[in-house]
């Protein structure tokens, strides 16, 4: 038989259990009672699940391999820079380096700063290339001003080259996340293709001019044919149709003019339609309005 003094100690156990946050087994059991199970553990993951990974961080994460201090000597010569753009870029590089050397920059900020640093270095190289191109042009013009059309820096090519370089710089960032990388890969391919197209296009025009200068009929005819074929293929691609091979340059240029004016013609047709509608509809409407007004005034 059990003691009859249970209630007082049970109350004590209750209070202690709550203040110590313990789970206690307060009863003694007879031998026949089944073994108590262990309390279940908390589940935090299951082997049956392939848990989706967290999203990749946004595309400019910190690059663990970037050595901020190993930099071009030139970056320390802000005072000696020859023009405003170079001075500006060098100052921004200096500021970013200084921010990157702060010990407690968070990874997102660090990634962005590192990317900007690399981009600014690229911008500086691009600017140098442009300055050199300008100098080469100045030299060529000094010796023969009439060669401008062969020596003039082509701004479209410059622009497309810069597009290619910008996309290459983005892709050179090892911290780029896969989705953004594939997007810039597409953009790089696209910019390379545009550059190649533009170079071919301009080269064929220049070849034609050079051929004309030689006054060699055969050479001129060949250059015209090459240009016409190229322009026909290019226009066909835009329009989704195929032009016959061997069209004359004049014929294909007529097609180009039609293509360019197509949208203007549509616009003018809209204008004509509006004018006709106005001419036809306005007088009856005015008459109806006047009649209503007259009746109202009576």
């Amino acid at each position, binding site marked *: 038989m059990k003691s009859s003094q249970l209630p007082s100690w049970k109350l004590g156990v209750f209070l202690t259990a709550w203040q110590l946050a313990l789970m206690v087994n307060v009863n003694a*059991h*007879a031998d026949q009672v089944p073994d108590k199970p262990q309390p279940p553990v908390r589940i935090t993951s299951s082997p049956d699940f392939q848990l989706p990974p967290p999203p990749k961080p946004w595309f400019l994460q910190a690059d663990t391999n970037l050595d901020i201090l190993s930099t071009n000597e030139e970056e320390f010569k802000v005072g000696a820079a020859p023009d405003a753009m170079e001075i500006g870029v060098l100052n921004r590089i200096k500021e970013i380096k200084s921010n990157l050397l702060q010990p407690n920059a968070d990874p997102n900020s660090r990634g962005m700063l590192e990317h900007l640093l690399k981009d600014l270095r690229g911008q500086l190289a691009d600017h140098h290339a442009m300055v050199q191109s300008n100098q080469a042009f100045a030299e060529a013009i000094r010796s023969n001003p009439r060669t*401008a059309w062969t020596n003039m820096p082509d701004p479209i090519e410059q622009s497309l080259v810069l597009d290619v370089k910008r996309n290459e710089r983005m892709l050179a960032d090892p911290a780029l996340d896969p989705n953004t990388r594939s997007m810039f890969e597409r953009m790089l391919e696209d910019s390379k293709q545009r550059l190649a197209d533009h170079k071919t296009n301009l080269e064929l025009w220049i070849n034609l001019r050079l051929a004309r200068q030689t006054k060699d009929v055969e050479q001129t005819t060949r250059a015209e044919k090459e240009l016409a074929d190229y322009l026909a293929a290019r226009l066909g691609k835009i329009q989704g149709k195929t032009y016959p091979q061997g069209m004359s340059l004049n014929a294909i240029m007529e097609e180009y003019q039609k293509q360019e004016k197509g949208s203007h013609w549509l616009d003018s047709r809209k204008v004509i339609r509006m004018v006709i509608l106005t001419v036809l509809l306005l007088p009856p409407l005015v008459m109806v309005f006047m009649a209503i007004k007259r009746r109202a005034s009576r």
Partner: protein
Amino acid sequence: MKLKSIFAPIAIGAFLVVPQLMHASCYSTYTNATTACSTAQNNTDTAAYNTYSANYQNAQNTYNSTVAQDAVAQALTQATCLSTLYTFTGNPQVFNDVGSCGSAVVAADQTADNNYSQAITACGTNDQCKCRAVVARDYSKASAADVGVKCGNDAQNVYNQCVNNSTAVQNRSDRNANATFINSSGVAYATYAKTIATSDNYTAPVCNQNASTAYANCSLDVDCGQTPANCCADGCAKTDNSDCFAAYTAYMNSVGPAYAQYQYDSIMCGVTQNHDDYASYAQYGYDIDMANATYDYNRTVAWNIYQYTTSIDADQHTRDVSLCACNSTNDSQYNSCVATANATQVANDNNALAAYNQKNNVPPTTPTGDNWNTWNQAYTNAVNSLNAAYATHLLTEQTCAQNTSNTYDAICNSAGTAYNNAFNAADQKYQNCLKGCNQG
């Protein structure tokens, strides 16, 4: 004669020096113009960089502020959870505070004692009656204590759930703040990239081209001044230079802004996808946190019920055995009575265990049970939802990138066509002009 001898060398000298000076003047104008291009480019780029830095910092500050507010909100919620817990269990810092659970036990104890006194008085000299009164009192007190312990356990369980829920809410809010930060910093970067692309890739080359054309034409004027026979061809070349510049500029004015927008839109397609992924992951994390919190709560409810039931079984067993002692007149009767009590307790405990196992059964490898099934379903739903969201975002991003690229393509095609027309017109004009010179 004397005059001739003076002016001849001056004229010859002037003939030699003036063109050089004029050319130097052209070159000087050219370098000034390219310097101005460089300054304009730098001003635009510097402003873009400063704007980007300020916008990025704002995005960062907003994120930090939200996270700090979330932490405060969580602390307040948890304080409320704790306060609720103390109303049940009593505050350990307050002397003699046993909470509503403890008060109920004390009251039940008092009632049991009162009932016992009344029963003893009523029993008079009847020992068997007194024995039963003791058993009834002890059972009442024991079961009241069990109810009190369960009350406290349940309150603790509710408190744990309250804390877990508030953590889940805070985690979700923090992750959403991160998603917002991704979007804001993405907009800041895309805007910067757009401005730089316009400034470096288009405005600067056009500005330099303008300077180059002016320089070439100035040099042609010098050539004409130097060699009047060249003037006609020089004039043709000047017109051609200007026409080519117009063709380039028209192309660049169409394609430049389009390319900058293409850059911006492409970056934003990725940023939007990344933002949406993070927002969905925030919801997924919340769902998982809540599934875990619910599982934790449910398993503890089942465990508390099991503990309570087996404690009551034990109390009943104690009462039954004590009553056997009160009521039995011989050992055989007592032993039979105790055997029945034992069997009743075993049956009751087995039922409690079966009920518990129905809810929770977590063997080492394959968990089973109602609570696990609920948790498993919640996990499955959360995982499926997240995977579906990721797939949708990726598809949207791809469509977005394709649309952006198509828009840019259309503008490039249109500008390219106009460029070839302009170049053709310039070429024909140039050829006709040269023919005119030759015929003249």
